[in-house]
């Protein structure tokens, strides 16, 4: 008696595995093609997301595209729009959000109040206390060079580059204790470098202690009020379009433009990344087409075997299942190889270009490991799905034919 009995699934799987080895050169070609396709997708997706992440960090450091402030407010023209300027005039904090402008990708409100005798610095020094919304901000937190290892919370302050205090130390502002949460890098923008930054909630809690004109706290410290907005354009919008849209939607505001070339570069790079994505999709689609043609030939070649299986009582689902298993095994292996090759390419990239960028002070931010793992799994899964889809139609057609026709076929 045979010593190694096999279950049906193992038998059919074994049949599929052995068939893979029948025409080694063709199967290696198939696996290599799938490996190339899935490798390009994995590597491309990882690099694209990493570049996007690095770009996002880089460009947000370059400031907003536009700044929206009250019409009568004075503004200093600086190279980068990072922070609003002090003014007695105020806007409603939800004014821009309510307008729902398609040319605006995101906006962040800021409150600023210039105070004296705050307890920071020497007695007569004026200090800009700047409030921002941590969840919406994109011009302050990207400049954090050091911070306490936790999320920003009420009572925390961030110091501009020109101010110095140990992280985590206590800072009294108008006699009220605050914690130094972090410190910003040098930006060259005076208000930004000398500012003391905190959340709206922290700044509003200080309001009763801050004397304004006539003794009442400054109007901007009231909840729902803001000094101005920093605006990032939508990917396909121009500064001019956004300016017109804002001016027609909001009354009594002034729109200040930043360096328009930065927005153009960002939009251009975003378009380039979209182009790379399209190229990747095209490459994957062509791999899928090739796999489909190859499997069509494989099924044609094995019609007699499929006919024999049908003749001895295999159901169509069993015949299809065997062919799909075979295809999934081959293309899944290709996908796995592609990911391994992709990792090697990424390592090479890390040791060359990323190393160079780092040396010249341009940070390159890789996507995190779980995301990269998810991309790898997705690339392998996509390769397997392509194999299954590629074989499904020819196998389905073959399985519909009479067993006798299949058995009489050449192959």
């Amino acid at each position, binding site marked *: 008696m045979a010593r190694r009995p096999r279950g049906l699934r193992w038998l059919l799987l074994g*049949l599929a595995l052995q068939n893979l080895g*029948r025409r080694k050169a063709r199967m290696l070609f198939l696996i290599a093609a799938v490996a190339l396709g899935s490798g390009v997708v994995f590597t491309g997706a990882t690099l694209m997301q990493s570049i996007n992440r690095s770009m996002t960090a880089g460009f947000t450091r370059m400031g907003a595209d536009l700044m929206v402030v009250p019409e009568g407010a004075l503004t200093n023209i600086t190279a980068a729009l990072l922070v609003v300027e002090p003014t007695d005039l105020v806007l409603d904090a939800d004014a821009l959000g309510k307008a729902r402008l398609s040319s605006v990708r995101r906006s962040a409100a800021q409150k600023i109040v210039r105070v004296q005798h705050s307890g920071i610095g020497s007695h007569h020094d004026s200090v800009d206390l700047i409030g921002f919304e941590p969840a919406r901000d994109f011009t302050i937190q990207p400049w954090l060079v050091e911070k306490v290892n936790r999320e920003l919370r009420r009572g925390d302050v961030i110091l501009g580059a020109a101010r110095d205090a140990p992280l985590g130390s206590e800072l009294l502002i108008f006699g009220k204790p605050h914690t130094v949460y972090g410190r910003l890098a040098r930006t060259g923008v005076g208000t930004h470098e000398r500012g003391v930054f905190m959340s709206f909630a922290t700044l509003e809690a200080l309001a009763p202690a801050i004397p304004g004109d006539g003794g009442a706290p400054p109007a901007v410290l009231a909840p729902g009020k803001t000094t101005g907005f920093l605006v990032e354009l939508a990917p396909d919008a121009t500064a001019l379009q956004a300016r017109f849209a804002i001016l027609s939607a909001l009354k009594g505001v002034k729109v200040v433009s930043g360096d328009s070339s930065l927005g153009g570069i960002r939009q251009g790079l975003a378009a380039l990344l979209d182009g790379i994505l399209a190229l990747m999709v095209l490459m994957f689609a062509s791999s899928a087409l090739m796999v489909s043609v190859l499997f069509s030939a494989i099924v044609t070649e094995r019609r007699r075997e499929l006919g024999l299986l049908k*003749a001895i*009582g295999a159901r169509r689902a069993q015949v299809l299942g065997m062919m799909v298993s075979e295809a999934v095994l081959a293309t899944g292996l290709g996908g796995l190889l592609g990911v391994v090759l992709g990792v090697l390419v990424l390592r090479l990239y890390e040791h060359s270009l990323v190393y160079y960028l780092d040396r010249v002070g341009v940070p390159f931010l890789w996507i995190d490991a779980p995301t990269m793992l998810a991309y790898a799994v997705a690339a392998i899964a996509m390769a397997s799905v392509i194999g299954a889809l590629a074989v499904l139609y020819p196998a389905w057609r073959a399985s519909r034919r009479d067993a*006798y026709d299949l058995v009489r076929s050449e192959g």
Partner: protein
Amino acid sequence: MLSCRHLRKSYATERGTVVAVEGIDLDVPAGRFAAVIGRSGSGKSSLMAMIGGLSRPSNGQVLVDSMDIWSLSDAELARFRNGRIGFIFQFASLLPTLRLVDNVALPAMLDHKRAGGDVYGRAATLLARLGLGDHLDAYPTEVSAGEQRRAVIARALINEPQVLLADEPTSDLDEQTEIEIMDELLGVNRELGTTLLLVTHNLALAEQAEQIVHIANGAVVT
């Protein structure tokens, strides 16, 4: 009882329609040995394929115990082929990538109800009975053509079919092997009561049959 009623099979070719079987009526009582004879191209194999559920007739019926097999659904027909028909082709029809014992066990494993028992034990017993007890783990290419044909017979018998259809099962074998194979088939017919429909050019062999069906130009002559 195996019956054919007005059975017709035509093929569409580039040169027009070719009629392979033209309105055959046939009755083969259960347990009988019937020989199908006729010249090459007379329609014998097409008839066998339709009876075995392998090729859909253009017209007519194939009745097994009064059930029209071609009215069954695709899954039911597969179950019918699996459980009630054993088909032996005129060529070695083993799957080359499976061992002999796997080849023989496979039909039983395709049906979940049969797969539960000692399928491999039955496969091994059948192969041993056909003189292949020492070749259970051999692959088809590792045994002779005659041994392959015996393994095919074992595979056809694994599910204890009601009808055994053998389409020139000894066509390319030497005389001695042919005698041995035919002895096995006739033994199955006699001992198990399996209906045997045998296509053959060997008139001496056909004369041993209880019923001879002579086919010419797709029709039954006698």
